[in-house]
């Protein structure tokens, strides 16, 4: 068990792939913002890669272990300590009852850190997932971010704790972080020539787009693209601005909404439908990078990708998030 001392900025229980299969009922999938950091954290502690872990956005999380456990910390380096002594990232460590884990804030690269716990986080399944949907207030731990005095239970580890400690990743399995996150993307469904001009689509792919401060688990807003050129003079019956379309289903996670002149990536807790055009779609294998984009600091760059490349990238990611990545 883990007793929370300080929930920090925004710390939530998330699994992967989240709560899928309910988009038609208006329920977003939620799930880890960075499924690679969560997946590797899980592999290190002997869990399945999609098991629920703790996602820390920004930082300042602090908690006390009430039982012995094996954990791993991945993601951005928030300078985690155990009883005020630094602990390594990207490897599994044994913790004892009474140990206090404490995080500072996000590092030079990345924005979210993850704690994997051998046996996973034991919260009730809600519609098949342990993920927190912050904007729906369900799932995870009482449908909200963690706060002081919450107590998280752990599941049963796959092996005895001593055999799970000290596991490390191959150096090449540790993801590379950046301040310009390159996302492979497939154009559509609202693209050129019907909705954007060719120049409009080229603009999206040719430029880096700054992550805005008001980005969260629902959507990541990018800097206003004033030079984005639309194919239509207006949105017809859907509205005066040409980014308007009649309400349609959004292909979350990863759709790039164009809302006025603002590109917005719809992700974990994002809306399942709406009336703005969606110009491109980030491939599943690159969604994790969006979760490490630091609001107000980092940039996002889209590169063209085919569906075949997207499928291959997803296969490669499955291999990556497996015990084959252990040293």
């Amino acid at each position, binding site marked *: 068990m883990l007793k929370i001392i300080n929930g920090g900025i925004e710390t939530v229980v998330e699994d992967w792939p989240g709560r899928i299969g309910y988009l038609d009922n208006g329920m977003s999938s939620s799930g880890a913002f960075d499924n690679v950091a969560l997946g590797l954290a899980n592999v290190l502690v002997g869990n399945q890669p999609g098991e629920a872990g703790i996602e820390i956005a*920004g930082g300042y999380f602090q908690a006390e272990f009430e039982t012995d456990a094996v954990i791993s910390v991945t993601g951005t380096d928030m300078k985690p300590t155990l009883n005020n002594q630094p602990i390594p990232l990207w490897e599994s460590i044994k913790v004892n009852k009474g140990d206090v884990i404490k995080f500072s804030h996000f590092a030079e690269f990345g924005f979210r850190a993850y704690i994997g716990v051998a046996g996973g986080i034991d919260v009730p399944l809600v519609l098949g997932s342990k993920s927190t949907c912050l904007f729906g207030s369900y799932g995870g731990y009482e449908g909200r971010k963690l706060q002081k005095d919450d107590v998280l239970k752990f599941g049963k580890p796959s092996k005895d704790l001593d055999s799970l400690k000290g596991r490390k990743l191959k150096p090449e399995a540790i993801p590379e972080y950046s301040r310009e996150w390159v996302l492979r993307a497939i154009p559509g469904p609202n693209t050129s020539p019907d909705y954007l001009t060719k120049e409009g689509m080229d603009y999206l792919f040719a430029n880096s787009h700054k992550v805005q*401060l*008001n980005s*969260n688990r629902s959507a990541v807003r990018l800097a206003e693209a004033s030079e984005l050129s639309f194919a239509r003079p207006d949105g017809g019956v859907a509205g005066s601005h040409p980014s308007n379309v009649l309400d349609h289903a959004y292909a979350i996670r990863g759709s790039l909404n164009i809302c006025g002149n603002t590109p917005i990536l719809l992700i974990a807790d994002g809306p399942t439908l709406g009336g703005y055009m969606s110009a491109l779609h980030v491939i599943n294998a690159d969604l994790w990078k969006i979760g490490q984009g*630091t609001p107000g600091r980092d940039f996002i760059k889209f590169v063209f990708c085919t569906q075949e490349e997207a499928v291959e990238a997803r296969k490669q990611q499955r291999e990556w998030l497996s015990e084959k990545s252990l040293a």
Partner: protein
Amino acid sequence: MEITVKAHMPGLVARVVVNEGDKVTAGQEVAVINCMKTEIQVFAESDGVVKSILVKEWDEMEIGSPMIILEA
């Protein structure tokens, strides 16, 4: 001794909730930053008197940006 209260998250200043000359205690909320569409409280880390306020509403903060100076 002067103590600077710094932003602990990037964001926009939503408001400063103390005035110059106010006495504050450690752990007291002194300002609020807006980030991720969430209001994040900024606390004084030690007791003191507000000597000067360096920010105003909508100012953009980076992590570590000075916000308020306390005289301890």
